[in-house]
């Protein structure tokens, strides 16, 4: 309907590749490719026409290419039945895809120094971001963390795309032993980073945000909440986020995010309705102004 919004397509699978612990699927989806901005994701129907799996599975867009009018690649590890089904796709199969979805990463106007921190499959979303940033003349440094060597994401690409690439694994099987957040501070210092971009599990994002705070630099986090619709209609993916007006709202990760300013996300209150959130039980007493509510999340 719109030239900017997401589209729904039946896209043929071009290739399915195995990359260490991950699968990479490339689909032909010109309309998605053309609209894509880094940080956005797609959602894929799984299990075929008579699937018992009602919900789509969201995946970060890892790469878009101009081939065949526009291809889109996403990477995933097999986690449950949906990803198991995806891993069995072959080329020429059709996938029912909706995208691109979500708010993209905001890009800096000036050629600043950017550190990109990705945990596990959360790194996927940072590769197209690195490209966009470099096109704007930004310096890019990667910090990539994973449980083990086979879960480290595209090490070679990361090295190629960035000024430096630092790797951490929990078991020390690749790069530094330890967590991504153990290494991040040093990278920020060495690279004189001006901004952090991060994607990964919620506890990691919280720590990354804290570290950025220590260095007084802004941080953009991309969250991976469970999503029923991905299009903003179901309200299942909410987290408490502080608005520009200082008011906390239950914001939808799928359309108000998945990218948020790290400082705005109330990490400690995720899984709760903070007492001071707009519309929380007992909230009524505090409000007064009429205009306030107008900007709430949904």
């Amino acid at each position, binding site marked *: 309907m719109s030239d900017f919004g997401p589209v*729904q397509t039946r896209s043929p699978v071009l290739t399915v590749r195995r990359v260490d612990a991950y699968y990479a699927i490339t689909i032909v989806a010109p309309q998605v490719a053309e609209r894509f901005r880094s940080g956005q994701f797609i959602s894929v129907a799984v299990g075929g026409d008579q699937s018992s799996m*009602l919900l789509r599975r969201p995946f970060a867009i890892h790469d878009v290419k101009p081939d065949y009018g526009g291809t889109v690649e996403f990477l995933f590890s097999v986690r449950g039945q949906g990803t198991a089904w995806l891993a069995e796709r072959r080329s020429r199969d059709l996938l029912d895809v909706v995208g691109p979805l979500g708010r993209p990463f905001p890009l800096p106007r000036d050629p600043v120094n950017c550190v990109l921190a990705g945990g596990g499959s959360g790194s996927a979303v940072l590769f197209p971001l690195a490209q966009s940033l470099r096109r704007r003349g930004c310096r890019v440094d990667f910090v990539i963390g994973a449980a083990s060597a086979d879960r480290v994401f595209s090490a070679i690409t990361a090295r190629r795309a960035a000024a430096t690439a630092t790797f951490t694994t929990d078991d020390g099987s690749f790069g530094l032993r330890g967590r991504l957040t153990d290494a991040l501070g040093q990278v920020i210092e060495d690279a004189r980073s001006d901004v952090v971009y991060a994607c990964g599990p919620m506890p990691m994002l919280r720590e990354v945000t804290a570290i950025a705070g220590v260095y007084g630099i802004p941080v953009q986090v991309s969250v991976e909440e*469970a999503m029923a619709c991905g299009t903003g*209609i*179901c*309200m299942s993916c909410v987290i408490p986020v502080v608005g520009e007006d200082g008011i906390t709202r239950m914001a939808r990760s799928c359309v108000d995010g998945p990218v948020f300013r790290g400082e705005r996300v109330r990490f400690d209150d*995720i899984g709760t309705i903070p007492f001071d959130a707009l519309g929380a039980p007992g909230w009524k007493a505090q409000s007064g102004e009429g205009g306030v509510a107008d900007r709430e999340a949904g």
Partner: protein
Amino acid sequence: MSPDMRTRLGRVELDNPVLAASGCAGSGRELAQFFDIARIGAVVTKSVMLEPHAGRPAPRMAETPSGMVSAIGLQGPGVEVFLQRDLPWLMSRGGRAVVSVAGSGVAEYQELARRISGAEGVEMVEINLSCPNPAAQGRHFADDAAEAARIVHAVRSNTRSDIPVFAKLAPDVPDLTALAGACVEAHADGLSMINSVRGMAIDPRTLRPAVAGGMGGVSGPAIRPIAVGCVYEVHTAFPDVPIIGMGGVRTGADALEFLAAGASAVAVGSVNFSDPSACVRILRELEEALAERGVSRVAEVVGAAHRNGGAAPNR
């Protein structure tokens, strides 16, 4: 020839019988990215409350076989924002709005009815009776037919008379037919059914309830036979009361099932999550199915399952 799809719901006639269900269509804007919102019968709005409402803590949903369990807790901006922002937007796009209302007592429903009835662009009002009644340990209003009737009466008598008021029923009530009867006696112009079915999923990894607060509502194709049964039984008891049928509508054939059971329209709920263009697809499939069987007006198939006597013959 394409069949006449118009359907009548009390005093209102809709262009076609495919609606987007409450809470499953956002404000209409989100679905409008995928199709022209004016093409479907109507959009039933997320249930509106008087004040902003933050809803329930996350996690709010889990997938189940052919369905999902959810507990959103009526998150929403409150009636003021709704009337200032969402309703005018729907009107501007030629969408027709069925406004769903939710409250915590008769007084709130009454006040909501007054506010909404005065606004422009309200085609119908749907009363969400599956709201916790603070005066009854959080049991739903729908659990108590007398309480439900009081709410229906309050909304009906505070709504402009040309706006039909439908009561939305849940299946898991002590006596559905009695509840429907109480609503009709309280002058509901029609019934919407069904709301989601109480249920729970437990995360097999953590062994804890997958949705915060434990219980949630089961929706999606899984509940369709339950929903069709409810529509059939209530239509048997009140053949003249129009029904908006819902619960797992995924295809035109599913819509036809509800119409045959006695619904005059259907609403598409959770399937909008998995297929954002579902409403228009279902409308097209329904049109094709009717054309194929040579039906010239959709109204002809409403209640068909009651007229054809007995079950289908064994193949």
